[in-house]
């Protein structure tokens, strides 16, 4: 399945891109598993996603916990804790 990944703030900077299309295998069923799979691809991704405690996610623009499922997801965003206002 093809998923549009979005990265924000320092996740974006460390990944070196704001957006990419990825196709994880069917065994990747949660956000946490998706992060693991992305991090296993290359050193840049591994480094960008190393600090899992400071990663937050949204699936199809809804904030979710890392154990949330990604079945049918079109868009998954990864980012640090928010700091607006």
């Amino acid at each position, binding site marked *: 399945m093809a998923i549009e990944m979005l990265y*924000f*703030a320092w996740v974006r900077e460390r990944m070196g891109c704001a957006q990419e299309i990825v196709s994880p295998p069917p065994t990747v069923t949660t956000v946490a598993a998706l992060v693991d799979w992305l991090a296993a691809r290359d050193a840049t991704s591994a480094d960008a996603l190393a600090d899992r405690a400071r990663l937050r996610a949204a699936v199809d*623009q809804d*904030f979710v916990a890392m154990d949330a499922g990604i079945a049918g997801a079109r868009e998954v*965003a990864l980012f*640090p804790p*928010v*700091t*607006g*206002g």
Partner: protein
Amino acid sequence: MIRIVVGRDPIDIGAEMTLAEGAAGAGAVATFTGLVRADDSVGMLELEHYPGATEAALTRVAEGAVARWSLGAATIVHRVGPMTPGERIVFVAAAAPHRAAALEACAYLIDRLKTDAPFWKRETRGTDARWVEARDTDTAAAERWERH
């Protein structure tokens, strides 16, 4: 009336107040404005956001306040992009018939915005840029609205 604005233009509080005050039954309007502080050596503040998700999150926050306090109006205006010290980052307003509802709803709007909306701040001091860290006190401030 719910008014959500996310954009790069400076925030016009006079115009926003006039809109909020025009809400049916408005006798009280409480507002909160967040500024780039001028005294902590930050030369520039940049706000990044998640287009689409930001507006949806802010709309949910405003809808929550309108339902809970029967507001006539809830306004959230948030700037994105680069800003300099003294500039307004965010403005929220709550209009209600009486002051207690307006004041509480205003605090709710800014507390929930801080934790629920996908914005990220980057400060530049001299040549050093860093992403602002989230604060536990913001999470605590937002969670108090769950308890009562």
